[in-house]
């Protein structure tokens, strides 16, 4: 470390630190916005995972569910627009009839895939990891297949959800303004995500549904002996969770951008899986993990688009640019290995429940 610092014209470490803090604070308002935008799909995927696995069903099919929802949302909007015209977008969120219907379609698609996963994992009692893998492969294949076919078809122009513009009066509030702007200067799905995180957290630990979900995920037999229908609880959770991942997928194709690309999830489903684990299977934790990841991505992006000046700048010039690409992933590992350590899944996670088993 010492020698390394000397090589860069003997800059005092402290100076660098101060410069970084200053740079960081200046960029914070913009970075935070970026971070949240990047976090939304990851977090929604992670929430889907939490809801499944809290009830004892492992779900690695997040990527597939998102991809399918992304495709369905975009395609449905195009088709509906073709049938009934684009319609005029509302001033806030830029809602149009096709757009809303498309979101609905995406959610339904996601829930149907989850239903398949539920059936395989709960009724068929198949290997839940294989079931998830099937969903991923099938989704990748199907959406890619259709997308390539559609290359030859000309589809009507589509619109997407627009972000809420926070009045500068609010966003300029000292200290918290930037935070409000980051969290709520989003499209409907983005804002919904923030709400879901809070609601889900409260429900999981304060509501009857939450208590029963946790019970089923920890010790299904015990739950059954007090008259809880394990199978039904798990079905409900898994199918419902599909809607969450679907929101994440829809965010990609009809909110953040305006169109579908084969494989546009770019592994966000798997990152979501990681976020769920780093967040220790709790909604807030998952949100935090997703945010941490997205934030470190935002930092590397910020450094690349408006690099710091002064000694800090020269210091960073010595760092290969690829390092900043890898930064978010490194940070995640460090956080998990260093701070969080072992995160333990719900006890019955991944264990198919067999009702009539002589004890």
């Amino acid at each position: 470390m010492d020698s390394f610092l000397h090589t860069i014209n003997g800059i005092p470490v402290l100076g660098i630190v101060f410069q970084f803090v200053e740079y960081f604070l200046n960029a914070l308002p913009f970075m935070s916005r970026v971070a949240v935008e990047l976090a939304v799909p990851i977090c929604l995927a992670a929430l889907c995972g939490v809801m499944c696995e809290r009830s004892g069903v492992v779900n690695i099919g997040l990527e597939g569910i998102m991809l399918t929802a992304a495709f369905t949302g975009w395609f449905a909007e195009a088709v509906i627009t073709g049938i009934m015209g684009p319609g005029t977008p509302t001033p806030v969120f830029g809602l149009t009839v096709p757009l809303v219907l498309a979101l609905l379609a995406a959610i339904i698609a996601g829930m149907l895939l989850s239903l398949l996963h539920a059936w395989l994992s709960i009724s068929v009692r198949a290997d839940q990891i294989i079931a998830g893998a099937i969903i991923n492969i099938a989704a990748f294949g199907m959406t890619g297949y259709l997308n390539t076919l559609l290359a030859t078809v000309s589809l009507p122009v589509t619109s997407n959800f627009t972000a809420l513009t926070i009045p500068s009066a609010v966003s300029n509030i000292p200290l918290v303004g930037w935070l409000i702007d980051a969290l709520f200067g989003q499209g409907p799905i983005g804002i919904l995500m923030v709400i879901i995180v809070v609601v889900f957290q409260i429900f999981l630990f304060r509501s009857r549904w939450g208590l029963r979900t946790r019970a089923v995920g920890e010790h299904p037999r015990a739950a059954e002996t007090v008259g809880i229908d394990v199978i039904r609880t798990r079905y409900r959770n898994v199918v419902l969770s599909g809607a969450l991942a679907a929101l994440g997928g829809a965010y990609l194709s009809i909110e953040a951008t305006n169109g579908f690309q084969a494989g546009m999830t770019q592994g966000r489903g798997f990152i979501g899986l990681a976020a769920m684990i780093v967040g220790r299977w709790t909604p807030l934790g998952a949100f935090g993990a997703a945010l941490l990841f997205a934030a470190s991505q935002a930092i590397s992006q910020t450094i690349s688009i408006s690099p710091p000046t002064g000694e800090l700048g020269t210091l960073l010039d010595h760092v290969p640019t690829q390092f900043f690409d890898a930064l978010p992933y490194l940070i995640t590992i460090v956080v998990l290995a260093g701070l969080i350590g072992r995160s333990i899944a719900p006890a019955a996670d991944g264990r198919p429940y067999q009702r009539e088993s002589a004890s």
Partner: protein
Amino acid sequence: MLTLGVPRVAAMTLVLLVLAACGGSPTTTTNSKWKIALMSATGTLQDHNFSQYSWEGAKKGAADIGAKDPATVVPVDSTDYAKDIQTFVDSGYNLIVTVAFDESGATTTAAKKNPNVKFIGVDQSPICIDTSGNLDTTFGCKGDPKTLLPNYTSLYFQEDQPGYLAGMVAASITKTKHIAAVGGINVVPPVVRYIQGFQLGAQAIDPSVKVDVAYVSTSDFTKAFNDPVAGKVLGSQLISQNHDDVLFQVAGKTGNGVLDAACAANVYAIGVDVDQYLSYPNADPCLVTSAEKHLSNAVEQAIKKVNDGTIAPGDTLFNAANNGIGISPFHGKEGMISAALQAKLTAALNGMKNGSVTTCPAKCGQP
């Protein structure tokens, strides 16, 4: 169950496929001696962009010479190139178009191996071969493709020229004196050339304009060219933090996200490669123009030339001189283009034709 199931299912699949294989290959009828095939860049054909437009060109060309619609294949990753080209050759295709700078190696090798198959490569220059006509992996490039690989033509474009024009437009319409070019990744020479031209063009109009250059990734190709969301987010931050009010995208489908960002923030965007007003209508509200290389035209012409035997082997440059590049019409935004700017654009274009305008620095195509 599965433990045994899988070997059995696999085994049976193999058997059945073998049986099926005994059938004759599907027959194709065509009144031209050319069987045309196209290998797109990895990922997908429907990029609203590069691959898709080369393909359009190939289709037009095929129609022109009365050949069957070109067959297409989308390689899964870079290890597929050689295999897929071989598949084309094996199934009797004799005019093969490969579309991506990194397919040059495979194409060169294939061209050397199959002298009586015609190859058209897009963006694959310089063709780098040794004196015996084999792919030169040491980049000495001693061999002369024209004589050594008469069946291989590489169409390449002077992207810095359309980039230059785009830069001029951007620098003229910016109010904040901040404009940005977003590249997919900095190891693709055409991408870099676009951006280098863009910078020079902007400076030519107004040296005080600040040109931000950002690359979506420096390592991950799929993210660089196939992740619109990444492009959107990057674009948004350029607008919000650096006050850039004209975004020039050079990042394929990721770049479409950049266009979305511009539209969402009511600033201007400039498309790339093709007239994105047509290829990506979603961005029409904010798209001023596109820095074009006339891909489909180039491919179409090349195919026609192959047909009437007038094709020139080796590296074929498309630039202002042969009208191979340009910027697309403004589609209703003509109002933004002052007569003065229009004049400058024309002048620059002429300057490029007669070489009086330099549009790229010395290390052209290298970051």
